[in-house]
């Protein structure tokens, strides 16, 4: 892998001098060409992270670098699409693209025109007359025609029906194949993430709960199902006879229907025990398991963070 297209360390942003922290202690890396999903409930810090990466917010602490420099020095390489694609509803599509051409020195007019044509959108159509899916595609075209190395998309899939979502993703991925661009996108929808991203960031309460490459994360976690009451009924030491490499860490536990289901982080060795069944977690199980995790520095939550997430179908 070449140098990361985005990396931040100890990154935090505070709204106002004494206001709330939108994000704290955030350390992550986006490899060149990677597709990274940032998931978490509303208020988790997803938009704050994207705004920091886009150079729209300053870091209160820590560092954020895009292609090795501050985002404000890399604006030409960054393509940012804010949530809900605000697009001047009274303008025609060709005028929207004209504004893009005017504002961006690296604008690729051929790419923009070809893309709009191949999507079957009339350049003469007014934005207000477009469907939600078409508006999302025009917004993506505005971003892609900059020929950025990093796409930052805030909730790009939120208001798309399944068919529009597929069309949006296919055309976004094809553009990425051509340009080699990396994608960092936020989503409160976790259905189908597995086919979309190769890296995952789970945010909650302004903190990174989990970050990494998905196949790696799956290999280092297990979903354990066992009898009710586990793991309190059995001493953890008995579960891992081979804990030479640091053993394991319990992330979260759910009790339902007389069974215990737990998400566990493991070392090189697998957990084993009488009556226990261990399986690699799906991406949904990873996300939900980490959102269930209680942190020592976290105030008792009044609201279940899962309640704001759209569970997979």
């Amino acid at each position: 892998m070449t140098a990361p297209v985005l990396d931040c360390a100890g990154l935090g942003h505070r709204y106002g001098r004494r206001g709330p922290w939108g994000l704290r202690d955030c350390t992550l890396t986006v490899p060149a060409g990677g597709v990274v999903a940032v998931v978490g409930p509303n208020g988790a810090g997803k938009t704050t992270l994207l705004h920091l990466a886009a150079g729209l917010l300053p870091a209160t602490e820590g560092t954020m670098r895009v292609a090795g420099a501050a985002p404000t020095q890399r604006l030409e390489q960054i393509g940012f699409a804010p949530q809900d694609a605000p697009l001047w509803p009274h303008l025609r599509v060709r005028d929207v693209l004209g504004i893009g051409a005017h504002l961006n020195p690296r604008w690729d007019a051929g790419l923009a025109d070809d893309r709009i044509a191949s999507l079957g959108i009339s350049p003469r159509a007014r934005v207000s007359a477009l469907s939600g899916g078409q508006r999302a595609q025009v917004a993506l075209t505005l971003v892609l025609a900059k020929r950025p190395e990093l796409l930052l998309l805030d909730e790009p899939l939120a208001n798309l029906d399944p068919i529009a979502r597929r069309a949006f993703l296919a055309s976004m991925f094809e553009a990425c194949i051509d340009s080699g661009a990396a994608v960092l996108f936020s989503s409160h929808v976790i259905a189908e993430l597995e086919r979309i991203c190769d890296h995952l960031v789970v945010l909650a309460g302004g903190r990174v709960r989990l970050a990494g490459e998905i196949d790696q994360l799956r290999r280092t976690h297990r979903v354990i199902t066992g009898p009710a009451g586990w793991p309190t009924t059995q001493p953890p030491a008995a579960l891992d006879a081979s804990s030479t490499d640091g053993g394991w860490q319990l992330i979260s536990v759910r009790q339902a229907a007389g069974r215990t289901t737990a998400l566990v982080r493991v070392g090189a060795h697998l957990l084993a025990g009488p009556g226990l069944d261990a399986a690699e977690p799906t991406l949904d199980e990873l996300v939900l398991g980490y959102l269930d995790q209680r942190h020592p520095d976290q105030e008792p939550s009044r609201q279940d963070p899962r309640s704001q997430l759209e569970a997979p179908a």
Partner: protein
Amino acid sequence: MFRLDAGSGVPIYRQLMAQVRQELLLGRLRPGEQLPTVKEVVDALAVNPNTVAKAYRELEHEGLVRSRQGLGTFVAAAPSTTLVAARPALLASLTRWVGRARAEGLSAEQMQALLAVALDEPTVAAEDRTGGGVG
């Protein structure tokens, strides 16, 4: 050529790899034939191109396919003969087994569940494999 099962819990790149292997074993893909390009798969499935590339890369590590710069990915090797032709006795006994199961009123789904249990039988060996990245 590819289909994805979102609910299976099997990582997508492993699903793609398994389907290529299956096509090879059944003789539907032959040496020299080209796999769909990454772009074609992305277009058909709206799936992350890095995932498709990973599946092709792992298949290349297994020696089953070879990528040619700028041209695509091609089948490098195939079983010297297809599985069906190479294992007539196994197929025959499996066919008899299916006949018996059907006579006892089992559905195809129930037979597959039994087969899955049988495949999982030596648990330790099966679990050792999960860390290797190849399912």
